[in-house]
């Protein structure tokens, strides 16, 4: 239960940052046609005229009772705003996470089996190259490639948003395919660097495991190499890799901000980006809360998974 003071601490920090910085949500009305008195009244309606400690206490109180308040810039309850954006980010992040681990592990295993081969070396280099790439730039390059004339119109992947205009008219399979096509580029841009990191870990971990006695025993028993690697070695090599899951969540969510902006993906990252710029305090605070809560939940899941793959760990 150490998570709650953590969350409280970070949200308090953000609250102070947001409120102490110059400017406020009424900046959007900055214009000589809007009189200062009206702006003053807007601030009063937002509750921004109160002393800071009072705003803080009120905010904390409503937050604890599950009321995230109203979005200043969207004129809707924050819960509704977040409910629109969260599933989209979970979809993007979930698919990316899956791909990160599947591709990363597969590449790592191949490298470990073919240690010091040309393939190993080139994959190591490739992984390093990709790992050093800014996600937003990779995203732009993907858009550039997809938009080039060399790509036939039919094969062009969508570069923005999460559904086509005629999505509503599609059948179930059509919708799934459409959503899948929209996912391709953002997923790659978001996940590929982390996949490279997973591959590096997996390679190291696999090499360590392969060198151990029980693997040699398994080989000596005459098991096929495939069985040795995929059944005996993999499970043990996975243990340290699973712990990466908790490490990647903050990276993924952070990356989602940039990637969602690049690909116009209507998720949490873009929402937060816009909300910060619009000084939409309630959305920023609730969104941050959600991010941190997701990361903490992700860490719990990682711990549980750890227990699944590592039989030595048992939770009471």
């Amino acid at each position, binding site marked *: 239960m150490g998570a709650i003071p953590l969350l409280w601490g970070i949200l308090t920090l953000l609250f102070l940052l947001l409120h102490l910085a110059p400017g406020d949500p009424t*900046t959007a009305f*900055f214009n000589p*046609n809007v009189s200062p*008195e009206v702006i003053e009244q807007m601030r009063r309606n937002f509750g921004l005229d109160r002393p800071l400690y009072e705003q803080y206490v009120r905010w904390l109180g409503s937050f604890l009772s599950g009321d995230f308040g109203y979005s200043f810039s969207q004129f809707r309850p924050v819960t509704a705003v977040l409910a*629109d954006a969260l599933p989209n980010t979970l979809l993007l992040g979930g698919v990316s996470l899956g791909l990160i681990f599947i591709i990363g592990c597969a590449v790592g295993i191949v490298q470990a089996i073919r240690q010091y081969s040309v393939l190993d070396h080139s994959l190591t280099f490739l992984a390093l190259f990709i790992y050093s790439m800014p996600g937003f730039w990779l995203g732009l390059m993907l858009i550039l490639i997809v938009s080039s004339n060399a790509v036939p119109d039919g094969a062009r992947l969508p*570069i*923005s*948003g999460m559904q086509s205009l005629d999505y509503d008219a599609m059948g179930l399979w059509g919708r799934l395919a459409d959503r899948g096509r929209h996912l391709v580029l953002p997923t790659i841009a978001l996940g590929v660097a982390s996949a490279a990191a997973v591959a590096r870990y997996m390679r190291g971990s696999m090499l360590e495991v392969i060198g151990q006695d029980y693997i040699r025993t398994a080989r000596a028993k005459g098991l096929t190499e495939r069985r040795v690697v995929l059944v005996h070695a993999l499970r043990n090599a996975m243990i340290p890799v699973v712990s990466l899951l908790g490490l990647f969540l903050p990276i993924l969510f952070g990356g989602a901000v940039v990637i969602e902006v690049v*690909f116009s993906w209507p998720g949490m990252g873009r929402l937060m980006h816009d909300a910060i710029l619009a000084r939409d305090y309630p959305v920023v605070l609730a969104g941050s809360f959600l991010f941190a809560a997701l990361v903490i939940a992700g860490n719990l899941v990682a711990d549980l998974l750890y227990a699944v793959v590592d039989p030595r760990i048992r939770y009471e």
Partner: protein
Amino acid sequence: MRNAWAALLSRTLCVSLALSGWGCGDRTESLEEIPALPPVAESERFGGTAVVGGAADVATVNPAATTGHLAAELQKHVLLMTLLRHDSTMQAEPYLAESWELNQDSTQVVFHLRRDVRWHDGVSTTARDVAFTFERLKEPRTAFPNREWFDQWEGAEVLDPYTIRFVLRPHAGFLYGWTQLPIMPAHLLGDVGPEELGRDPFGTEAPVGNGPFRFVERLPGDRWVFEANEGFPNGLGGRPYLDRLVYKAVPDEATLFAELRTGSVHMLRDLPPSQIERIEADPDLAVLTFPIRSYTFIVWNGQRPVFRDAAVRRALTMAIDRPSLVGAVRNGLGRVANGPIGPWHWAYEAELAPLAYDPEGAAALLDSLGWTDSDGDGVRDRAGNELSFELSTNDRQVNQDISVIVQSQLRAIGVEATPSTRESGALAAALTSPERRFDAVVLAWDPDFEVDDRPLFACSHLGEIFQFASYCNRELDPVLDSIPMVRDRPTRLRLYRKYNRIVQGDQPFTFLYFTTDAVGVRRELQGLVLDARGEFTSVRDWWVHPDYRAANGSP
């Protein structure tokens, strides 16, 4: 039958050539001729869906909550109605009110409402709704953004369900507010407290209007869908030609363009200047341009000793190559500004030439004022002070681009402007603070239809938040004070001209350019009228050519 294309082409101001092209020229003639579509009988115009696409979503259509352009247009022209509306010469004409009377000493106005306007839920629109909207607007707790429209108005009295009387203090352009204020339904919002009015679900989830289109659905961040209001009064043209009107928000430029090209979007509003060439290259598309109210300027902080001298400000203006600036940052979509009154305004003075671009003249002027580069460091100085300052902008790309260009051009005459980007909120705070914590700022905004610039330049407003320039010219004050009071246009025109000339001499702002707006349109969308009133002014008369209706895949 009026040919909308021809009418629009004549409005085209200035569209520049390709990226590597020659800059801004007046392209009225060279804009491609759109092949005329086969003529269609009036009865054939009904039906179809028009999709308008743009980068920004509309957060709410509640008049009490927003000043956004697009939101205001949807309120005034699509969903709701105003008592009066502007005709193309910006004169008030009847709309929800079919007539009005002003008493002898201009202190009372009586509006007679149409009797055939109903809210989309079937309830009649009456004087009660007008009184309700007015009262909510005047109520300070509502924080109605444009309350100033009605500063001179007080007391509404409902004489009968379709007649309402107001008391006002006499002033020019007194009808203006009524051309802008959408009337809201009292029977639905009457119980909502003033503080809650702005965030009532009325604006985001369940708008009920009385305009030519009724609300169907909204997907936040994605689209607004409206359908024809069958009950729209015949006296105002009856139901719109279109069956459906969709506004679609697509933040990505490239996607938006692709959708215009494939026909899933018919009109692309707020066209990024860089997209013009692509659209013109497509035979089915056209770029239509029209002047809007927005102008872009640099404000000089008159509290800084350097900028206190009007001659210095003039020299700075002369050193900035504004024509090439318009070419560079707007791809030619704009006109060099000669003052605060833009081409959209009836009093625009096309003959008044802006201060000419003349770097040698500017240098000579600064020399004569004693600003010379005495220490040989490339920056002019006088009495130990360098002619160097910070040129701030907010984080909008176009403003940053301007600051970078201005920096480069001022450097050529030995003036050092250091561009700095500030977060919008911080910049607003710096501008409005009594200490005016800035040197110079690139800004853009829209003046109101009724130009009243006292808050910007009047001595009587020194120290108030919008007098950033801390500028005072006793000669100007009476002019600015009279403009809102004089009703006949010839007299006002003289006043505006005087205003232009004084400001041009003093340059409290360097007026950079008036913005020309552009939309990309598919040829099958007809009946458009585009001007400073907005893109949706004629939305009731829009129609989609029947030959294209099947192809656009409308639901």
